[in-house]
């Protein structure tokens, strides 16, 4: 064949499918997350489920049948689903107005409040539950719902708010000029434009509530269990591994179905749109409606988020010996000389170190997956990376222990397990938060950049990266917060000489005495400060370094 024809054909093919280099980059972007999820999620989980359902090598599906025939197990599954759905709806209802206020209105102290609303997200459930009880909320379904709103408020505010901050107000104004009332504009234009963000936030919130553990145990009272608490009960009390495995499978299947539905629902829903710099979009509260919204939402945040946290702060500052930092000092002394002892600064250091590493892993792997998913126009990778949110920490923890036990992957007792486990939990955020943004990048921007002589790699750096960087940053901040607060999976893999702050909190709570309790409060307040500082620093850095698009 004429070599020129060949070359020409190659050039045409390149133009259509991208260069060999860009194909290789896509392949790597698919391979890395796949390998990660296979080794650190699929393999451990499959091992533990296999052990449960085929203890002697022969598959026994009887436990699965039990989940659906035993009325009490059926009740657990049903309760898990509807409480999660209800919690999600309630969270959206309360937090969406909050997201608007924090995204669109300019008022003194806003960036501080934006940082503070993230705190609940990382708080140890046991202390939050204690604060709710101290505030007179009785153990009940209502308490579960309130606590779920408490924990997930930040998800909606941050995820939806980030989009809201940049939404072009002209669209809404155009609708108003066409005769749409405020409510109608909200329904037909704003919510529609926010839909990718709302769906992402709702998905995350639902998954969190679906696999809720501490909130159900501590605030639901003993009569209420979710699949997650039931797995815990069956694994650690009844030692009924087959039933636990069956429940895990049900949980996993439910999550897969949910993610599949979300994917279907969202197919093609994410439209490239003009985004605007936040400072062009936000404004001072000028109408009466704005002022009422601002006041109401600040009141909601104060009552729902600040009050329980304030209880913890006050408790940490009021030892019986008198107001002050006694409990904080005690944190450095209680159990000194014991193997249980960990100096507060060390715990802070451990937490930060693990969180940084987990964040890096989650952002790199999750970011690659999101990018690959957008490039190949498929969503399965996104879905696969969201799965860890839907699996019980107990299942995952045991899976790690029995699966990662042979060289070259003998990670038992390794420090790496902590950030790996945390990254698994944080990664879904990175993917769910980044993919919609990447998808929304107007393809014409890339064409424009290509026409200006940029190579495909250059296009990625010049156009995709700055925009993706902002989304990755938001996602990274979340990943960081999640890692700081993660408890369920960490407890299985943490080493006693390098515990994180939440682990320290639980250790302290294991003993009676004012000091034990107070020091736990102090440790959790330090955790609060850490999160608030990290979020503030993140917002600052982002504003300074990445600018606005």
């Amino acid at each position: 064949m004429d070599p020129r024809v060949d070359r020409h054909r190659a050039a045409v093919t390149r133009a259509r499918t991208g260069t060999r280099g860009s194909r290789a980059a896509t392949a790597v972007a698919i391979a890395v997350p796949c390998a990660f999820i296979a080794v650190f999620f699929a393999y451990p989980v499959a091992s533990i489920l296999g052990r449960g359902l085929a203890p002697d090598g022969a598959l026994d599906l009887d436990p699965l049948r039990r989940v659906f025939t035993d009325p009490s197990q059926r009740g657990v599954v049903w309760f898990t689903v509807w409480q999660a759905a209800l919690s999600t709806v309630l969270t959206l209802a309360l937090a969406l107005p909050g997201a608007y206020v924090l995204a669109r209105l300019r008022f003194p102290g806003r960036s501080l409040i934006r940082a503070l609303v993230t705190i609940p997200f990382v708080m140890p459930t046991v202390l939050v539950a204690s604060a709710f009880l101290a505030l007179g909320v009785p153990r009940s379904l209502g308490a579960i719902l309130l606590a779920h709103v408490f924990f997930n408020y930040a998800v909606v505010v941050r995820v939806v708010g980030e989009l809201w901050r940049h939404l072009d107000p002209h669209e809404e104004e155009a609708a108003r000029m066409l005769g749409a009332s405020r409510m109608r504009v909200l329904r037909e234009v704003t919510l529609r434009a926010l839909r990718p963000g709302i769906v992402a936030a709702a998905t995350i919130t639902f998954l969190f509530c679906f696999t809720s553990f501490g909130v159900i145990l501590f605030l639901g009272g003993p009569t209420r269990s979710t699949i997650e608490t039931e797995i815990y009960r069956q694994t650690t009390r009844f030692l009924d591994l087959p039933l636990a495995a069956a429940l895990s499978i049900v949980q996993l299947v439910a999550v897969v179905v949910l993610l599949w539905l979300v994917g279907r629902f969202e197919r093609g829903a994410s439209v490239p749109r003009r985004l605007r710099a936040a400072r062009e979009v936000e404004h001072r509260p000028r109408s009466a409606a704005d002022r009422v919204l601002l006041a109401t939402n600040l009141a909601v945040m104060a009552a729902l988020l600040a009050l329980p946290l304030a209880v913890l702060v006050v408790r940490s500052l009021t030892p019986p010996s008198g107001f002050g930092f006694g409990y904080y000092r005690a944190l450095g002394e209680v159990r000194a000389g014991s193997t249980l002892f960990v100096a507060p600064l060390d715990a802070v250091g451990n937490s930060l170190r693990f969180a940084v590493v987990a964040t890096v892993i989650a952002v790199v792997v999750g970011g690659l997956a999101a990018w690959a998913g957008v490039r190949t126009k498929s969503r399965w990778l996104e879905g696969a990376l969201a799965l860890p949110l839907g699996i019980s920490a107990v299942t995952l923890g045991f899976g790690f222990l029995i699966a990662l036990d042979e060289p070259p992957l003998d990670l038992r007792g390794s420090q790496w397990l902590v950030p790996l486990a945390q990254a698994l939990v944080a990664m879904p955020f990175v993917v769910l938060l980044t993919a919609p943004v990447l998808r929304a990048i107007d393809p014409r921007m890339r064409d424009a950049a290509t026409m200006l002589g940029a190579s495909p790699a250059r296009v990625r750096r010049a156009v995709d990266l700055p925009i993706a960087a902002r989304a990755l940053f938001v996602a990274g901040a979340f990943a960081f917060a999640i890692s700081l607060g993660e408890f369920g999976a960490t407890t299985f893999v943490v080493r006693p000489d390098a515990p994180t702050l939440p682990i320290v909190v639980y250790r302290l709570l294991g003993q009676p005495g004012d000091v034990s309790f107070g020091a736990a409060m102090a440790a959790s307040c330090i955790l609060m400060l850490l999160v608030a500082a990290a979020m503030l620093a993140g917002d600052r850095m982002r504003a300074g370094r990445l600018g606005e698009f």
Partner: protein
Amino acid sequence: MRRLPVLPITLVAFASAIVAAPSGAGAQANPKPQTVTLVTHDSFAVSEDVLAAFTKRTGITVKILQVGDAGQVVNQAILTKDNPLGDVLFGVDNTFLSRALDEGIFEQYRSTGLDGVPAALQLDPKDRVTPVDYGDVCINYDKEWFADHKVKVPRALKDLTKPAYKGALVVEDPSTSSPGLAFVLATIQEFGQKGWQQYWQQLVDNDVQVVDGWEQAYYDSFSGGGQGGKRPLVVSYASSPAAAVVFADPPITTSPIGTMTQSCFRQVEFAGILKGTEHRAAARELVDFMLSEQFQRDVPLQMFVYPAVEGTALPKVFTQNADAAEQPYEMTPTRIGEERDGWIREWTGIVLR
């Protein structure tokens, strides 16, 4: 030529640097064969100098792995029996013992120190596990509440159904809590296979509160927990009064809480050498060490349980505030193993539905 993704590589390298940094001595497998791994639960603790003395004397470094609560420790040991996580397991108690023994995760070893341990604590005739300590799950009461309300402290379990103690007791759910289960076992022992159900029905009628865990019971519900709880009676431990003194602020000498000594169920904690260990000699040294006087004396203030070896001196705070029960309820691990699940289900049916 395409550029290497410098940024990600740098980040990963940086990340490995920070993770690797603190691991130093412990994380990397020590090349010396003299490292023994102790798998245990979250509340295991030992004084650092006691542990250091052991290492100095024997040359054996102890690597501690804590994998969740007691139930999780046993479960993970069963799950990993083909390739155990460590050499010695500490923390299986009599409520889980039969399951662990049935699964055959331990190898037989009789420590010479066992001679000093009362026969009542030696629950495995085949010496696959070694009793190291015991704790008594008892009802604690808030001294101040009873003084203020001029109510007599209940003496026996049957007193708790009296109107005077209506709404006074908080217990833990046996399906999620270790002391919760122990207390149910105590009532079964006291009222018998046929009578305990009725007793619990009476407790329910007397407004008993059930919560999921010890932390919730003690700190959120118990009036003696110091956090605004309302109930003066809680299922906790015989050692809790001592702990309340040790962790008091400001320091006190007399505990604000007391123990109903006729309500106690004894939990014995065992250590065992995991089958498949490659450091049998060192593992045996560690078990011996756990029965040594030095370790036994360290047990009360580290884990707030009682030393298994008879005659071990107790710290003053224990002798003054927290005597172990003289006639605790006890039950054979085999019976617990056989009946536990059924009892929990039955209990759930009576109390929670």
